[in-house]
């Protein structure tokens, strides 16, 4: 039994911390994973982009080159200049300032969506691997059924009572991505839930909740982290789309989707204005996906110890729907 838990611990880095010093060990594991991500090309690029993004978001809370509401009817759709490095928009407001402030909103949205998806997904995973057969079966099929409802429909349903709001984006995306998370993490969680270690822990009187927190979740953590990272990226895309549709971030609140939307109306007249907001969203989403890929490589037991470019075991992705039933 000791052998089992030991093997699992080494197979899954940042895996189960069984007894004391859990926080310290988890921190150590997180640090190792972060380092492993950093030591890969894609991972390093991702961390740099996310670092810059976070820094800009924090700075924008206290300072932007121009006040957001500093409009100037005489200098609309200006080309980039020393005063306005990225030009001005249709109200004469500084594009760079709005993008910086948007970084904060979008960072918050990405984090909140990941959080909601994590909590909701974890609840679903717990139900799916439960020993209560009927509950588990229902959860599996329910996830299969609900996952086919488009995010945008959920957003529209929520938008009727709530109007355009960040909450709509967070709830709709969080709900949908939680379902995805549950579906993708289920095999790993099921493997852990049926392991000898869990069997014996349960036999020794451990509670189902305790086993879930101490063993099943830590062992599914790599899959969950990868999926959450990708979901955060998808949330940015959803924010842009929903904001354009008028049910996302309300007008007046800076966000990348908002900047993109403002540039739409005069696209044929001022095409250059389209460039920056779209580019910023794309770069951020690419970074989050690269982070997901690097996290997968870093936490994949098959790749541990082998040189990163060993392309032979290229773990990709998507790990979608590895047939659950």
């Amino acid at each position, binding site marked *: 039994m000791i052998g089992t838990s030991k093997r699992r611990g080494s197979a899954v880095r940042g895996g189960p911390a069984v007894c004391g010093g859990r926080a310290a060990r988890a921190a150590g594991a997180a640090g190792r994973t972060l380092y492993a991500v950093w030591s890969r090309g894609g991972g390093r690029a991702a961390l740099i982009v996310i670092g810059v993004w976070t820094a800009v978001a924090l700075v924008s809370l206290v300072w932007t080159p121009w006040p957001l509401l500093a409009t100037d009817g005489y200098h609309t759709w200006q080309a980039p200049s020393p005063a306005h490095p990225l030009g001005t928009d249709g109200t004469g407001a500084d594009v760079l300032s709005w993008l910086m402030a948007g970084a904060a909103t979008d960072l918050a949205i990405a984090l909140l969506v990941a959080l909601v998806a994590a909590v909701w997904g974890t609840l679903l995973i717990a139900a799916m691997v439960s020993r209560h057969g009927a509950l588990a079966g229902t959860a599996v099929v329910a996830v299969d059924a609900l996952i086919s409802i488009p995010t945008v429909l959920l957003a529209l349903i929520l938008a009727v009572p709530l109007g355009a709001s960040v909450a709509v984006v967070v709830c709709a995306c969080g709900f949908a991505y939680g379902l995805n998370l549950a579906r993708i993490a289920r095999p790993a969680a099921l493997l852990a839930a049926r392991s000898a270690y869990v069997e014996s822990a349960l036999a020794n009187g451990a509670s189902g909740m305790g086993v879930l927190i101490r063993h099943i979740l830590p062992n599914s953590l790599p899959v969950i982290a990868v999926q959450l990272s990708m979901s955060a990226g998808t949330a940015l895309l959803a924010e842009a789309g929903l904001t354009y549709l008028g049910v996302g971030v309300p007008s007046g609140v800076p966000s990348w989707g908002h900047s993109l939307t403002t540039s739409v109306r005069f696209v044929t007249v001022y095409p250059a204005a389209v460039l920056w907001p779209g580019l910023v969203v794309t770069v951020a989403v690419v970074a989050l996906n690269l982070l997901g890929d690097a996290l997968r490589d870093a936490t994949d037991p098959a790749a541990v110890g*082998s*040189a990163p*470019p*060993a*392309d*032979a*075991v290229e773990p990709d992705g998507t790990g979608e729907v590895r047939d659950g039933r």
Partner: protein
Amino acid sequence: MGVEVRNLRITLGNAPIVRGVDFSIGQGGRVGLIGPSGSGKSMIAKALLGLLPSGARVAGGIAMEGVILAGSSADWTTGGGHADGSSDHPVPTLADDDDGLLLAPGYAVSDRWMAGLRGRYVGTVFQNPAAALNPTATVGQQVALPLKRHFRLSRAERRERVERMLAKVGLDPADVMRRYPGQLSGGQQQRVGIATALVAAPRLIIADEPTTALDAVTQRQIVDLLVSLVDDAGASLLFITHDFSVLARATTRCLVLDRGRVVESGPTARLLAEPREPLTRRLVTAARTLTLGASPGGMDDTTDFGGGAA
């Protein structure tokens, strides 16, 4: 079919898997490769078949029937440890439809060229038939595949040859032809695997742990079946396993591999009777314990153990 392997080295990514292995199999010879998992034995089989995963590189020489598959002619003129000493191994030229793409770094031939070899001149029996057999093909379709790839036969001719082959491996053609692998037992699945490997009458059979996934009794039946069929056909056999008790029944000569190197080689009976290296001794002891446990009395006589020796 004669096989020569000289100073074969295989790397996967940056990790060396095989670090210089020499052996040859003569016409009708039966050679075993034995070693613990991770010793590189399966990789050697995959290298012979051109089935190495992407990211793998080979160095050194592989030749079949005198045709160089991997390595340059330099590999054959220098250091020649083999008696036949012929440095006139032809290097096959790439056909027009090869797109000039070599199989993998280190090979002299393309995948298409190797594909012409596989199934026709070299048959393969895999470790885990449940994973190897195409679950969407019926047994009839599966066994017919090598014939389809290499011969122009009428439907009836093909069917007849498949049925004859299935009967040879002890399956009832009428019963199994239309069934799917998922509906067969493990032993039956491996019989289908053997039928597929042998249906085109190849000159070399490579069996990669063909019995590992089976229970002890079935293991014995499958090994006996394989050996008798190979012998009847006069083909050569390369048998890969980690279990000496199986090897004793299947081969006359074998090589013991450890971490990519040959640590000991010789007639199977001799290795069993007087293993010199610690690893060989461990493997022999393990085989005895296993076999004794499985069938008491079957192991008391080591000469009987190597009884398959020709």
